[in-house]
């Protein structure tokens, strides 16, 4: 009997349901902690002429006001992946480049006082022309964000796989379109929190923050602070109120508050408020993709051309431009396409810096690719689903090496599609459509097929560099996961891991995995996921992002626990006086398989290494703790730029029917079916929760959420009354279906599953809208305003 694969209820829940969570703002602060308020730029682009803090400093309770000049003297700009002169400090130095950019910091006795004092700081700006549109920003005449870079288009890379030119020459037809993906965030309900201390004795910083990783950002912070890594001790609290990628970008504030603590000589706490979060925390990058297919007359895609222009806002923060490269090896999606040319372009504009967000490049790619496939069907007069099926990677080709380098480890895409449309589901959709259309209503059916990567190859980002530059820099590849299983003197088991948690149920799943190996109950396993970089084991791959938990951390837990089990069996064999092969760990006991009455309680045997190391089998290291480092093979980019960007690849196929409300211009989702193959499912209840959460975020991206700027760079969605997070009333029902094709590459066989619907839903709904209205250009979020413009032809 195994706990893995069953819907074990969450260990996390009782505390969270009782108000006993331990989120960053709940934890005790050091004596004398002060509170910070950030003064932010009201201008999208301006020179900072003068900062006058005299009146603020004169106020009782105000300790200090910090400016970019102070920060520049004490710290270095953040390391950037690209060698471009794009320097960002934790406060603006000399110039502001987006509305909301931190300009000065007030440190005072309380947040209330700090906000009062912030209003007394007088900052004189000289406004500059701003550029918001990514294409305009590429023009030679565009205002420059970083003058030393001499261009806003700071990276252009061309890739060629196969023979795309001849594919286009021999094609029966070409189908092209341009697709824009907007800016949005998934706005975790808990904003950023940082509590920083400076320890003069060792010139080190000790910071608590609800950071999510990746820990590749830790060296970036330490370098900015001019200390070696061990002197930036970063602690992550036990609970975090959601992240979805967004809580990577707390890192500049970790540096800022660390410096503030040093300047103030006191611990400094900052709790980001929602207004700050919306204007400046983080956003997914917006992307404009020109995409073109060379096709046969029956819809087979022979070749693809993509021009991807991604807008990262005012700065390129590490590890950007991740979203542009994370999907790179899988740029052909679920389709068997041998020839691809791609141009990847990175542009900077006067908007908040973009960064990690759930889906991480997938939604942008699939909006282009899946819209293209729908357009191929329309322009060739074919059935959309037929075109999808004609191009899907066949099951017989698995494992499949995609043109740009990804190794799709397992799957049966055609079978997944057949299952999804089966049981009358597609017939029902068509019936609903026909009834609606017969009554003169606008109804459309959409499909989307996506490959969902999990656990990034840390080398993927170096694809951004040319092969010769990569050669000089040395190889970057792989991804390590680490888990430690500990045993205490009475045989109690605890687990620490290199993931951070924001609600994904890692505590429960790790307990399931370890309990299975040790013959215990999940409740017997104490999982401690708060993190302390000074004492816990971690690598640069640590953190919770890009679905690395299931193919990564969970596997390390499985390995660590099974090694511990093997040791305990050896110890038990000696104590039970049987051969090690005859020992099993079952039901809290260590016992002989052949004679189950010959048994000892787990705790007594497990504690042996503490109490009586001499009783251990000869030559055995004590079984006190077992750390596994799981480092699956992942190659660096090849000399011809092929890169297997992730370890595992799942599959999602979505199908939906939507109707346009003729009274209100709203898109109403009538029926939605989502089919997943994520390999082996570790906890179906938690898996379902992750998928439904991603689905809701997909709906949000498709219909509601967008960070909007006007042409001058003003930010228009600064409150939750303007930035529209869907409520329960806006999330339609979804029918989730599953098939399990285990990954052959990990011992658990599990793949990632928490991002797929973020990638598939916007494309699927856009396809359905295109079908309903018979239009080619569908911009998401498909708001009533945009639908009105499409229907009444009155411009955006």
């Amino acid at each position, binding site marked *: 009997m195994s706990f893995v694969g069953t819907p*074990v209820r969450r260990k996390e829940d009782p505390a969270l349901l*009782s108000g006993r969570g331990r989120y960053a703002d709940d934890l005790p602060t050091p004596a004398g902690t002060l509170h910070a308020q950030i003064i932010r730029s009201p201008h999208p682009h301006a020179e900072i002429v003068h900062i006058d803090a005299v009146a603020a400093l004169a106020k009782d309770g105000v300790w200090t006001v910090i400016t970019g000049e102070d920060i520049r003297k004490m710290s270095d700009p953040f390391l950037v992946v690209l060698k471009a002169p794009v320097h960002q400090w934790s406060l603006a130095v000399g110039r502001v480049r987006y509305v909301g950019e931190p300009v000065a910091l007030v440190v005072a006795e309380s947040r209330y006082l700090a906000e009062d004092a912030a209003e007394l700081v007088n900052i004189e700006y000289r406004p500059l022309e701003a550029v918001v549109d990514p294409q305009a920003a590429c023009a030679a005449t565009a205002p420059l964000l970083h003058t030393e870079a001499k261009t806003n288009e700071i990276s252009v890379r061309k890739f060629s796989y196969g023979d795309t030119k001849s594919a286009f020459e021999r094609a029966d037809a070409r189908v092209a379109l341009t697709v824009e993906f907007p800016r949005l965030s998934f706005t975790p309900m808990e904003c950023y929190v940082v509590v920083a201390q400076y320890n003069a004795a060792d010139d080190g910083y000790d910071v608590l923050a609800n950071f999510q990783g990746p820990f590749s950002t830790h060296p970036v912070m330490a370098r900015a602070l001019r200390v070696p890594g061990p002197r930036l001790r970063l602690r992550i609290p036990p609970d975090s*109120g959601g992240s979805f990628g967004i809580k990577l970008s707390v890192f500049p504030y970790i540096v800022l508050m660390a410096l503030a603590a040093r300047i103030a000589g006191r611990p400094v706490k900052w709790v980001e408020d929602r207004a700050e979060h919306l204007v400046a925390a983080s956003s997914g990058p917006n992307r404009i993709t020109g995409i073109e297919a060379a096709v046969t007359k029956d819809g087979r895609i022979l070749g693809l051309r993509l021009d991807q222009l991604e807008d990262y806002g005012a700065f390129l923060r590490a590890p950007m431009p991740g979203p542009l490269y994370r999907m790179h090896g899988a740029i052909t999606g679920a389709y068997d396409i041998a020839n691809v040319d791609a141009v990847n372009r990175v542009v900077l504009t006067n908007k908040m810096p973009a960064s990690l967000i759930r889906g991480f490049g997938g939604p942008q790619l699939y909006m282009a690719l899946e819209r293209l496939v729908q357009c191929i069907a329309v322009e060739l007069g074919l059935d959309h689903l037929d075109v999808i099926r004609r191009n899907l990677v066949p099951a017989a080709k698995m494992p499949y090496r995609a043109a740009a380098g990804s190794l799709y480890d397992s799957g049966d895409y055609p079978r997944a599609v057949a299952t999804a449309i089966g049981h009358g589901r597609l017939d029902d959709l068509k019936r609903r459509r026909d009834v609606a259309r017969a009554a003169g209503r606008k109804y459309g059916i959409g499909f989307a097929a996506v490959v969902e990567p999990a656990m990034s190859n840390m080398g993927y980002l170096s694809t951004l560099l040319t092969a010769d530059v990569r050669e000089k820099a040395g190889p970057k590849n792989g991804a390590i996961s680490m888990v430690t299983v500990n045993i205490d003197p009475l045989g109690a088991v605890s687990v620490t891991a290199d993931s951070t948690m*924001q609600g994904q149920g890692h505590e429960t799943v790790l307990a399931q995995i370890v309990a299975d190996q040790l013959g215990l109950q999940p409740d017997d396993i104490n999982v401690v996921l708060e993190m302390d970089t000074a004492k816990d084991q971690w690598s640069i791959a640590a953190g919770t992002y890009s679905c690395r938990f299931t193919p990564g951390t969970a596997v390390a837990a499985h390995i660590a626990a099974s090694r511990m089990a093997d040791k305990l069996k050896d110890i038990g064999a000696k104590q039970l006086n049987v051969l090690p092969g005859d020992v099993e760990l079952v039901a809290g006991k260590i016992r002989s398989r052949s004679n189950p009455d010959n048994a000892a309680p787990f705790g007594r045997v497990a504690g042996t290494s503490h109490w009586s190391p001499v009783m251990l089998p000869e030559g055995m290291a004590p079984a006190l703790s077992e750390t596994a480092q799981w480092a699956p093979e992942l190659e660096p980019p090849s000399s011809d730029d092929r890169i297997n960007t992730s370890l595992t690849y799942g599959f999602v196929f979505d199908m939906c029917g939507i109707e346009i409300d003729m009274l209100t211009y709203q898109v109403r989702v009538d029926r939605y079916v989502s089919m997943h193959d994520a390999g082996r499912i570790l906890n179906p209840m938690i898996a379902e929760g992750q998928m439904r959460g991603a689905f809701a975020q997909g709906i949000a991206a498709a219909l509601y959420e967008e960070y909007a700027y006007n042409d001058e760079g003003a930010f228009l969605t600064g409150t*939750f009354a303007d930035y529209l997070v869907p409520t329960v009333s806006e999330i339609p029902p979804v029918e989730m279906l599953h098939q399990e094709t285990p990954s052959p590459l990990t011992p658990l066989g599990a793949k990632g599953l928490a991002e797929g619907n973020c990638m598939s839903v916007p494309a699927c709904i856009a396809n359905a809208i295109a079908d309903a209205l018979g239009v080619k250009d569908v911009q998401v979020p498909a708001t009533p305003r945009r639908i009105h413009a499409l229907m009444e032809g009155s411009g955006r």
Partner: protein
Amino acid sequence: MRRIDKDQRARIRLTLNGRALSAEAEPRMLLSDFLRHSLGATGTHVGCEHGVCGCCTVLIDGTAVRSCLTLAVQAEGRDVRTVESLAAADGTLNPLQRAFQNHHALQCGFCTPGILMSFTDYLARNPRPSEADIRDVLSGHLCRCTGYAGIVSALLEAAGYRQSSESGSKS
């Protein structure tokens, strides 16, 4: 007539989860901050401070309200209840809380206390609501993790529509 000057700190007395408590506050102190930082009841969360997200929902005299849109001084003399009051003293979850665990109605748990308090009020007034009623009340809360499906299921169980499915009760 109660009067507190602009920079004056006054002692605010109220009943929190059955216990008479007090602390000093300026008039402008928000009830959410007062509960969390003056009285140490950190189970109530702050998600937007402009009344949209619902994380900070508490009961005042039994009525669910946004504590970020309430001044601490407005709760003076009132009976305030927060999420900390729901479980039994020994930690046993009440039926509403249990339903949330049974149906995986929470992930990060940050929005959860507010939702629990809203429905502690609502189900006391309407013990047998329709699913539409439940959805209408739930629409006063934002949750980013769950997609709401588990929450609706949990509330249907709490409203008596579903057997207490201790579904995944292997643990």
